């Protein structure tokens, strides 16, 4: 294990930090909020600086990184409250494609995304599917020359900026069956596709994706028909970890911004940092931030294991823990700033809003806590079962190999 940044990782972090410092100041961001809530020029810069492929190995078409590199970029973007769809496209969209697409599809689809030509986001969540990743009610009916998709995907982050969607749809089975979920590539301008845009609490654009007999050719199917749920879950886990990294960046920013504020703001003839009640509150904020960062690292480690149960468990644990920690730090940062913290005019309120977004997006803390509880029990049962099996095997071995010494 190594918790220090390698020279390459440090360079990546520095490049992201330099960019946000130069381009993503409070006023510059406010200008984006008054417009498209997105900058095509920034997105091109993300691609140019290699961030969109930073989290992919070379075999995956990237630049030799992994989840840690993704998190480094996401943390800096979170700190700056960037509005561009990094997590839904460069993380979830790409991960879903990598896990599910055929060799030929991967070759055709991944490169345009990491070069910034195409923004392709994952569209999986549905309103009735809260807390249940296998819930896919959007139907894909076979037609003569392909499929027809119908149904609604909700709250697709970054959807209004996308030119294509990776859409999960059911090709067989009941709404929550694990089998029967397929992925399709759906162009934003395809017939029967309606994009309903709006914006979320943190200023980012989201949309509902309404599919009404959207006609797709057979080659829009990504990979195997009916077996895409594992890939979706993997993509969601990568996305959750990326959100957690954003939150850690925003928490860190809120913490130190508040520290600086307490050192400068005077009341009763002294600066606020002299009040012990406020010092202790800030100490708790630091503790939450450091534990959140620790938990983020745990989730990143889990993304690299081959054991999906362990991966899902640790990512859910991270989302539950970091969601709450982010709220704690964000809410107290606002409180310690006093009235100005509750306005659009000060960045601390915007940090709070990003943390509020992460807390409830893709499953609130209790959703992930409940999943974690269930998966933890499952892991314990597997463990006990494995131990019993091993003990049985050992006993067998003894019977076979040691008739003399016994």
């Amino acid at each position, binding site marked *: 294990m*190594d918790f220090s940044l390698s020279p390459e990782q440090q360079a990546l972090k520095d490049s992201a930090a330099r960019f946000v410092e130069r381009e993503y100041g409070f006023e510059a961001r406010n200008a984006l909020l008054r417009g498209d809530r997105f900058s095509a020029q920034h997105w091109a810069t993300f691609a140019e600086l290699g961030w969109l492929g930073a989290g992919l190995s070379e075999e995956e078409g990237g630049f030799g990184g992994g989840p840690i590199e993704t998190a480094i970029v996401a943390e800096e973007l979170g700190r700056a409250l960037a509005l561009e769809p990094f997590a839904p496209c460069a993380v979830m969209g790409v991960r879903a494609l990598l896990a599910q697409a055929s060799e030929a599809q991967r070759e055709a689809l991944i490169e345009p995304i990491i070069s910034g030509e195409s923004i392709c986001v994952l569209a999986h969540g549905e309103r009735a599917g809260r807390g249940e990743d296998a819930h896919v009610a959007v139907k894909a009916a076979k037609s003569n020359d392909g499929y027809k998709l119908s149904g609604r995907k909700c709250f697709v982050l970054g959807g209004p900026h996308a030119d294509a969607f990776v859409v999960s749809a059911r090709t067989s089975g009941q709404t929550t069956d694990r089998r029967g979920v397929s992925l399709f590539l759906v162009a934003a301008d395809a017939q029967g596709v309606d994009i309903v845009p709006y914006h979320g609490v943190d200023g980012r654009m989201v949309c509902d994706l309404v599919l009404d007999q959207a006609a797709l050719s057979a080659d829009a199917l990504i990979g195997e028909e009916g077996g895409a749920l594992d890939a979706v879950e993997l993509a969601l886990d990568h996305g959750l970890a990326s959100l957690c990294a954003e939150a850690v960046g925003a928490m860190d920013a809120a913490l130190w911004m508040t520290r600086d504020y307490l*050192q400068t703001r005077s009341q009763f003839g002294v600066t606020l940092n002299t009040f012990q009640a406020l010092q202790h509150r800030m*100490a708790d904020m*630091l503790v939450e931030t450091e534990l*959140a960062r620790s*938990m983020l690292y745990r989730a990143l480690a889990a993304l690299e294991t081959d054991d999906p149960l362990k991966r899902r468990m640790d990512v859910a644990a991270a989302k*539950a823990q970091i969601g709450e920690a982010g709220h704690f730090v964000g809410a107290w940062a606002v409180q310690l700033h006093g009235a100005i913290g509750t306005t659009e005019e000060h960045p601390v309120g915007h940090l709070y809003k990003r943390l509020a977004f992460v807390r409830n997006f893709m499953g609130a803390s209790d959703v992930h806590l*409940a999943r974690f509880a269930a998966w933890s029990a499952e892991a314990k049962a597997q463990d006990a079962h494995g131990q019993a099996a091993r003990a049985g095997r050992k006993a067998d071995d003894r019977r076979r190999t040691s008739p003399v010494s016994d």
Partner: protein
Amino acid sequence: MDFKLDPADEAFRAEMRAFIRANLPEDVARRGRRGYHPTHDDVQRWQRILNAQGWGAINWPAEHGGVDWSPLRRFLFQMELKAAGAPVEDQSALELVGPVIYTFGSQAQKDRYLPAILNADEFWCQGFSEPNAGSDLASLRTRAVRDGDEFVVDGQKIWTSEAHKADMMFALVRTNSEVKPQAGISFLLIDMKSPGLTVRPIYTINEGLSVNEVFFDSVRVPAENLVGEENRGWSYAKFLLTNERAMSAEVPHTHHDLELLKDIAAVEILNGRPIAEDPLFAAKIAKLEVDLLALEYAVLRVLHTPEDDASLNAVSSVLKLRGAELRQRVSELSVEALGEYGLAVFPDVEGQDNMDKLAPVPPAPDYAAGHLSKAMFRRATTIYGGANEIQRNIIAKTVLGL
């Protein structure tokens, strides 16, 4: 950054697990899994087994009889020890005074005390706190006056853990009251059998005995028992207190307690089903487990961060604070899981430290024993070693610069 556990470390962990399973006596392990303080004999038996293996002091350098394991391996070993129910070692000796003696002590002190610690021939207690010197330790008043080749010690220590079992005490004593408080303190090793030294037990709210008052009435201590230089004791104490900060989170202990809690929750019935399947209770366990997973990674970060790294201060500051809170929460939840029997006082029938020697054993399942005792005793975890409010002061000052 790279968070993969080295396969060699995984192999080490498996090797340790196998060793402990093969060598930890069954009755010691059974008592270790209970919530009571381990008996003198159990600590001694297990320490001698470890010492025979060369693992008597895993946090000491090899030249003083320790091992040169990485911090990570020491942590993994602790996890395995706790998981198996091994008794907690004599921490005062191995984690606190031992490193002070081999770092600042004379050769004669090293030869005299270190082997006896390694083999658990002598047990130690820490004489730091006084009735009017708790969080404000530097205001301590127990004084030691030089008289020829002896010091004469007068005063009182309190909250002295295991003083009733200890052979030796390491104490902070005032040798100069003319200077600022920190500059007049010395570090003295005191034989607990010295004439004029008396120990009064203080029973804590778990009806058990682990802390004491110790009174000094003209206790004569050989001058050769002074560690390092006179009036430099405060710096040795600071060294001692920061030495084991990664261990201060006590993650292995809480991990073990959490496993016990899950075992209880799997069999205790609420509303006709195991309480582990009650959604509200399951959520409480899950929250604890999640918090522990985060804390464990914070420990791993500290273990892998070089001493001179600027980020170390921030992450290590959370360990004691949150570690202490988690220890309380897991034992409180264990009591809750047990229902009304969770409130029944189980005397520590195999120990010697009960306040009520004649207390009957409640007719509850075996696994119910010990949890109430832990929950009561653990109110102290957020107080000892620098109360959590002091920890917050330290974070505010040294990390946040407030």
